[in-house]
């Protein structure tokens, strides 16, 4: 009798069984995560496709939907994040996943607004990533707050077609690209050569080189010479190593040869206004393969070469390692877990290498880096990506890398450095054109004085 009753009760209870699983995600009730990232332009499509694929496959199976709410330049995202951080009126809601640099994330961590991702990754899972990249996202308490998914460094982008023309006429060789001093000399020769092509117009020589980030150049240059640009949270501009950097760049910037431009160097490359530039490996897609000349009609197919970052003479090869990561907002277990699931999928070798192949970033997993990059160097559909990977791999074999210091006012200082540097050099250019005698030492003193205010 008892058995009968138990059996009947079991029959009745059957529909109620199966509840109370420990898995925080439920495919029938998916969680929608908001995301901000900075991969616009040509990289947006790659991101869109990958996120779509996640939503349609793993996300669907696990119950996670990633919805991109904002795609903007890092600086713009930074502004919005600052509003959130400060609790400004009208500040947007904190997204679940956002691309950010450690210098930004550390402020969110201080206010306990982001989650420690160690809680969602096992040691085994983290061991799949290049340790140095993971360590970049760890803060004082040892927790992982910025998850790496792509890294970049700075390289030298060379319009080989235009340079070959110049080289053939002047004998300047690509050896000049090994050092900033060599580039400065070549820039002077190029300005002179191009100026000479229009004998009737004096002073219309063309620029040869520019840098996307002069503050990165200064940081790398100082380290190459065994010094450091940042002394704590201030700039060490009195250092002889910095004076050498200033000396190297000042004359071609004022006399012609180095372009002082507010936008990216790829803009000037597109119109043949420069021959080479140093910039992020992730900017490779912006160069294209065509130069459009100022008449807006004449175009020329050109070939680019991508070379390792130049080194100041006598210095050791050092270059910046860049690349933001994803930080995850502190929210509920379900949302954080879901975000971690996305990060795992997105940074897994298969997806990681696809992202690399389409964007020009470097992968972050050991498998992708060691096994897939050499293969990609042969098979990437875009030849510029192949060249970029080759240059980067050379650098990883021979260079030391540094990351930007992590402190709250870094962004402001870096921004001011760029602004002051360009403003001063443009004023010096104007003064020179107007016939004034400009002294390099005076300019450096004036620049240094700006930081004393």
């Amino acid at each position: 009798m008892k058995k009968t009753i138990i059996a009947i009760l079991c029959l009745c209870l059957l529909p109620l069984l199966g509840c109370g699983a420990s898995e925080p995600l439920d495919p029938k009730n998916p969680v929608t995560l908001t995301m901000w990232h900075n991969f616009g332009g040509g990289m947006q499509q790659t991101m869109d496709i990958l996120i779509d694929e996640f939503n349609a496959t793993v996300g669907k199976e696990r119950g996670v939907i990633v919805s991109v709410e904002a795609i903007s330049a890092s600086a713009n995202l930074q502004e919005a994040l600052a509003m959130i951080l400060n609790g400004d009126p009208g500040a947007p809601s904190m997204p679940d996943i956002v691309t950010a640099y450690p210098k930004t994330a550390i402020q969110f961590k201080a206010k306990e607004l982001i989650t420690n991702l160690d809680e969602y990754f096992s040691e085994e899972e983290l061991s799949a990533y290049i340790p140095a990249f993971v360590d970049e996202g760890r803060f004082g308490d040892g927790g992982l707050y910025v998850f790496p998914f792509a890294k970049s460094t700075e390289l030298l982008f060379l319009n080989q077609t235009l340079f070959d023309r110049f080289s053939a006429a002047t004998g300047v060789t690509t050896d000049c690209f090994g050092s900033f001093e060599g580039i400065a000399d070549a820039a002077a020769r190029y300005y002179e050569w191009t100026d000479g092509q229009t004998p009737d117009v004096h002073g219309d020589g063309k620029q040869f080189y520019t840098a996307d980030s002069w503050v990165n150049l200064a940081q790398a240059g100082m380290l190459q010479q065994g010094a450091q640009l940042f002394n704590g949270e201030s700039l060490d501009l009195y250092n002889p190593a910095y004076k050498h950097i200033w000396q190297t760049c000042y004359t071609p910037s004022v006399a012609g040869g180095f372009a002082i431009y507010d936008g990216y160097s790829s803009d000037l490359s597109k119109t043949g206004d420069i021959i080479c530039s140093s910039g992020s490996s992730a900017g490779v897609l912006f160069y294209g393969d065509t130069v459009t000349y100022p008449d807006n009609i004449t175009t020329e197919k050109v070939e680019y070469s991508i070379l390792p970052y130049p080194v100041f003479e006598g210095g050791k090869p050092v270059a910046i390692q860049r690349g933001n990561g994803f930080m995850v907002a502190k929210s509920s277990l379900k949302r954080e877990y879901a975000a971690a699931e996305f990060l795992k999928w997105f940074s897994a070798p298969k997806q990681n290498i696809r992202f690399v192949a389409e964007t020009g970033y470097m992968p972050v997993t050991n498998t992708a880096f060691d096994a897939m990059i050499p293969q990609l160097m042969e098979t990437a559909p875009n030849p510029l990506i192949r060249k970029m990977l080759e240059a980067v791999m050379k650098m990883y074999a021979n260079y030391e890398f540094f990351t930007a210091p992590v402190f709250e006012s870094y962004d402001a200082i870096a921004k001011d450095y760029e602004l002051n540097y360009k403003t001063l050099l443009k004023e010096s250019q104007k003064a020179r054109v107007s016939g004034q005698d400009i002294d390099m030492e005076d300019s450096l003193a004036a620049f240094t004085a700006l930081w004393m205010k």
Partner: protein
Amino acid sequence: MLREALLLLRRLRGEPRTLQVRLFAFFALFAASLVGVAFLLLTAAGVFSAAGKSHLAWLDNEIKHLQNSISGGYSELSLRGVTLARTVALSIGAWVQRNGITEADIAAHPELLESLLSEQAGILLTALENNECSGAFIILDASMDNKNSAPKAGLYFKRTETNNVTSIASRTYCLRGPASIARANGIELLGQWRAGMDVNSAEFFDRTLNAARQSGEKDLSRLYYWSRRCQMEGDSEQYMLLCVPLIAADNTVYGVCGWEMSAMMFKNLYAPDSVQYPRVFAALAPFFEDGIDTGAGLVAGSSFMSSRMNGQFLAFDSRQDMTLWSAPDGTQYIGRAESLALFPSGSPFANETWALAVLMPMEDWDAVVGQSNAVFYGAFAGLLFISLFAAVFISRRYIRPVALTLQGIKSDDRTGLPKTQIVEIDDLLEYLAMQDEERKTLNEEREILAAELEQAKSIVQTRNNSIDAPVLASFKQFLENRQTLTETERDVFNNYMEGLTAREIAEKMFVTHRTIKFHNKNIYAKLGVSSLKEMQIYITMMKEMGEPR
């Protein structure tokens, strides 16, 4: 467990059932019937379909809301585009006059086009800043190369940060146009930048120009055209373009200008509320007989980007006032589509039908509606479970005293059986106890009687053997005295003759035992005996001698 339950049920079917099982079965059946009837009544009352109806109502509201929103947004952009076209046309007209050429001669002066465009850059940038669009452009029907097949001269500025997060600053880039103009306005070139506009395969350019030139309609508010989803050569983004012809005072058509509505911006502006339905999306797409062409329109939803929505959605069935759609990849969707007019009446493009559809994967709809009803189903399952539990409990509780009593009845000693507070059972127990008592008394009497009988036989035997005169005299006296008995006493005496006990005689004569005892006393006195035992001796003698009653 299910197998075990089935085996038990099968066994039960072949076996005689206990009272408790029967009672449980009756209760369970009763409870299940009640729950079933309630379920049927609620079903008939439409309670379960109410969940579906509430979702339908949501869908109705959402599609109406989006219809108004998109219609309003697109109409406003159209009108502002018309204003932009008038402003740019006037500006070009002024430029033409200043440069001493005629409107029709612009194409013949490629060397002047950069100057012309440069003057329009400010207008275009201001317009871009003040309108809810992702890009603004001017495309002249003229080339800087003076060749028909060469890219057209124009300007195309874009805001790549078309966010719905308004706090994020927006930046403007140049997609097309002379680099010098972009730089003069402090605008960076996009990676996909080109100086000229290749519109050879762009239907929006030719259609707008042709309509302006051929339709005879000069009212710009009738001549604008919303393109199908398109992409400039080399660009990575997809968008719909509003194209408004630039018409000079002498009716020369300079080219077109207008806005870009990027796929990302459309998503940010018009994605349906996804709280309840995470994968719901809206699609603004050309409508054709069998469905909508999302590949030619824009899609907005939290989980759907434009890259997945290429192709046609075919309507293949309907359910509950909704249409079922089949996507090219075989996925089935459910939702509604309403027509949406992008062009005013009188427009050369008025016959182009667009639709707004709000759709979601079929599985999501079923899951959400099923979830709503799951509460009801759960409640009924719970009710059924409680009923069955109650049936078990009640049947056990009810049957327990009966079972105990029945068990007790089987035992020898029924005196210890407790009272059950059930009248019928307590009566039964009392009855059984009385029966037991009577049986006991009867046995005792029988034993006594048998003993007396034996004794009487012995006496008779003895007396027969040595019967003396006084005994015979007493026997005769006894026989004579019988005549003195009353009728009732005679009946009692006769019953004793038949061997009945006093209690049996009382029952037979429907009198109490006490009455019989009373009669006995009288009989003894009249017959001259001192006890029943003595009278039994004379009765035995009577029987042996064949004396009549």
